[in-house]
C-alpha cells in the first residue's frame, strides 16, 4: 500500500516560560497509507494534538521530515503550507470550532474558501445532506444541537476534497449515544471520499473500531511519565 503520510525522525519541542526547551515529540517513523483509517491513542498531554498540528502544517518541526502525498511539507514556506493544508487536509476539532457568525452551509463553504480550486457551492449542500442536516442549511451553530454541530464540522472538513482527514477527539464533546453515529459518519464518509483518516483519542473503545491502532506512547520516544506536559 502506498504511504500517504510518511514521518521520519520527527522532533518537536516547546520553549518553557521559565526558559529552556521541553521536548514533546520524538518519532523515528510513522506512516499512514492511502485510504487507511488509523486511531492514535495516548494519554492527555502526550503530544497527540501537537502531532496533528505538525502533520497539518500548523506547527513546524524542530527536525525531521513529514511527507504528505509525496510533498515534504517542512520544506514549504508558511504560505505554501497554508495552501497545501487548504487543498490536502481536512480537520475535525474536538470542540467543533464552527464560526458563530456563519450558517451551517456557510461554515461548510468556509472549508473550501481558502483553496485554489473552484468553489463548489453545490458540494456544501450535498455534504450537509449526507450528514443528515438537509433541513438545517441556514441554521447558525447556536441553533444546532451539539451532535448537529459536529456533523457540520465533519461536512466542513471534507468540503475541500482533502486527501487526509485529521480528527482530534471528535467524539469527546458529544454524548455517548451520539458518539457512535458521529464516529461512523466520519469513517463512512472518508471511505466514500477515499480519504485517509487519522483520529486521535484517549478512548480505547473508539480506537477499537479502526483498521489500525497506534499507541503514541510506543512510537514517541519521549518519556512523558518523567517530562512535564
Amino acid at each position, binding site marked *: 500500500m502506498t504511504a500517504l503520510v510518511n514521518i521520519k525522525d520527527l522532533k518537536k519541542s516547546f520553549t518553557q516560560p521559565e526558559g529552556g526547551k521541553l521536548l514533546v515529540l520524538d518519532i523515528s517513523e510513522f506512516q499512514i497509507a492511502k485510504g487507511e483509517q488509523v486511531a492514535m491513542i495516548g494519554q492527555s498531554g502526550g503530544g497527540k*494534538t*501537537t502531532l496533528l*498540528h505538525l502533520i*497539518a502544517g*500548523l*506547527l513546524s518541526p524542530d527536525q525531521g521530515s513529514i511527507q504528505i502525498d509525496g510533498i515534504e511539507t517542512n520544506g514549504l514556506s*508558511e*504560505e505554501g503550507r*497554508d*495552501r497545501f*493544508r*487548504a*487543498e490536502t487536509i481536512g*480537520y475535525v*476539532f474536538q470542540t467543533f*470550532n464552527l*464560526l*458563530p*457568525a*456563519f450558517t451551517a452551509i*456557510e461554515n461548510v*463553504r*468556509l*472549508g473550501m*474558501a*481558502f*483553496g485554489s480550486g473552484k*468553489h463548489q457551492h453545490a458540494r456544501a449542500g450535498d455534504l450537509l445532506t449526507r450528514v443528515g442536516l438537509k433541513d438545517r442549511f441556514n441554521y447558525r451553530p447556536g441553533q444546532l444541537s451539539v451532535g448537529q454541530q459536529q456533523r457540520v464540522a465533519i461536512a*466542513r472538513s471534507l468540503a*475541500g476534497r482533502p486527501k487526509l482527514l485529521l480528527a482530534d477527539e471528535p467524539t469527546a464533546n458529544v454524548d455517548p449515544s451520539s458518539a457512535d453515529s458521529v464516529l461512523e459518519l466520519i469513517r463512512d464518509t472518508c471511505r466514500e471520499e477515499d480519504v485517509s483518516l487519522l483520529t486521535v483519542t484517549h478512548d480505547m473503545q473508539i480506537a477499537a473500531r479502526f483498521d489500525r491502532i497506534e499507541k503514541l506512547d510506543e512510537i514517541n520516544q519521549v518519556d512523558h511519565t518523567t517530562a512535564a506536559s
Partner: protein
Amino acid sequence: MSLIHIAWRNFCHRALSSFLTTFSLALGVGLVVLVLSIYGVISEAFTRNASVGYNLVVGPKGSPLQLTLNSVFYLSQPIENLPYTEYMEFLPKDERASMVSRFGGDPKLAERDGKYAPYIAGGFAIPLALGDYFGEFRVVGTTPEFFTKLKHGPNVDEDFTFSQGRAFSNFSPENSYFEAVLGARVAKEMNVAVGEKFYPTHGDPSGQGHEQGFTIVGILDPTGTPNDRAAFVNLEGFYLMDGHAKPIERDPEEDVLDEAVDAEASNEEPPVTESESDSPTAAAPESTQNNGIRLVQTEASVSDSDPVTNEDPGSDKEHRPLSIPEREVTSILIRNGNIMFAPGMQNAINEGIRAQAAAPIGEINKLMNLIVGPLLTALLAITGITCAVAAVGILVSIYNSMNDRRRDIAIMRALGARRTTVTSIIIFESFQVALIGTIAGWLLAHTAIVLYSGKIEDQTGVQVGFFTTSNYEILVLPLVLGLALIAALLPAWAAYRTDVGSNLSA
C-alpha cells in the same frame, strides 16, 4: 465564499457594535458633507452676489468692507452719507444742469462736468439711500435706472424681471413719488402684493414708523442676489419722508470741504472722452439765496423732458422734490463703460477728501478669505477631527473584538487561510464600516440639505437639490477609506500575528 462576504458576516454578527461604530462615523461624515455643502452654497451665494452688474461702490470714507456689506448685501449699518453733490460728480454737465434746474441748488454745479464723469464713459452711476426698514428688510431708495441698467446672473446679462407689476417711476399721477418695488423674498415673507401700501420704519426694524407710505407697484422675480431681500423705493419719495431731508444750515467745515472738492475738480485732468467734447452746455438756471446757499427757482424752470417737473403742480403741492443741498446718498453704484478707467477712477476717488471707492468683488473675496474661509476651514477641521474620532471608534470596535475572534481566525487559518487572508478580512471589515458610514452620512447630510433647501434658497437664492454636491465631497470617501485603513492596521496586525496552535487549543 469571498473574503468580502466573510467580512460582511462578521460585521453582521456584531450587529450592535457595528451599527454604533457605523452610526458614529455616519454622523462625522454627515457633518463634513454638511459643512462642505454649506461652503459650496456660501461660495455660490458670494459668487452670485459678486455678479452685481457694477464694478465699484462709492461711499463715505471708512471701511470698504462695511461699504460693500451695506451697499451690496444690505447688511451692517451705513457708514455715513455723502452729499448729493458727490453723486453729481459722476454726471456730465447736462445732467447736472438738469438736476439743478429740477431740484434747485448752486448754479455753479451746472457749469461743469462732474469730476468723475469722464471715467464713467458710457457706464452708469446709480445712487442708493439706506436707513429705513420694511419689517426686517432694508428699504433702499434709488432711481428707476436701478431696474433698467443693472444686470444680474452668472454672466451678469440678465435683466430684472417682475413676477407682478412694474418698476417704479420717478413720479406717477396716482402714487406721486411714493412707489415701491419689492424683492421676491420680501414680498413672500411680508405677504404683500402689488397695490398694497407699506410704511417704512426709521433707523432699525423696530424703529418709529414713517407716516408716509409707499404703494407697491412691482415685485421682482427671484434673482438669487441680496436684491431679493430689499424693498426698493423711489429715491424722490425716500427724500420726502420725515427726517430724511438734510438740514441746510451749513456747517462751515462742510463749506470748506465743498470748496476743496470744487478746487479738486477744477485742477483734475480726467481722461478725455468723446462725451466730454459733445456734452451740451446747459443754461445756468436762475438762482436765489436761501440760508446762505444759492438755490434755483425750480418752478420757474419746468422742462418738458423732466418727469418730475411735468407733474401738475397742483396735484401734489405738499410734496416737492428736495433741493440738492437737502439731499444725501448713502452710496453710489458705478459701472465704468470702459473697465480700463476703473482703477484710475478708484484712485481718484480714494485720493479725494470725502469719498472712497471699493471694488465689491475684491471686498467679497477678502471677506471670504479673511472671515468666511478661515471659519469654514475651522469648521472643516472640527468635523475632520470628528471623522478621525469615528475612525478611532472603528479601531477600538474591531480591536476589542479581536480577543473574541482570535479563535475564529485560528480556525480559518486551520482551514487553509493565509495570514494575509485573515488580515484582508479585518481590513475589509473596516472598509465596510467606512463605506456604509460614508454613504449613510452623505444621505443624512443631503436629506437635511433638501429639508432646508427652501430656506436656503430664500436666504441665499442658491437652489440646492438632493444631488447638489460640492467639488470637495468626492474626496470624502477616499479620505474616510484612508482613515479606515489606518484604523484597521492595528487589529489587522493582531490578526496577522494570531497563533493558530494556542488559539485552537484554547
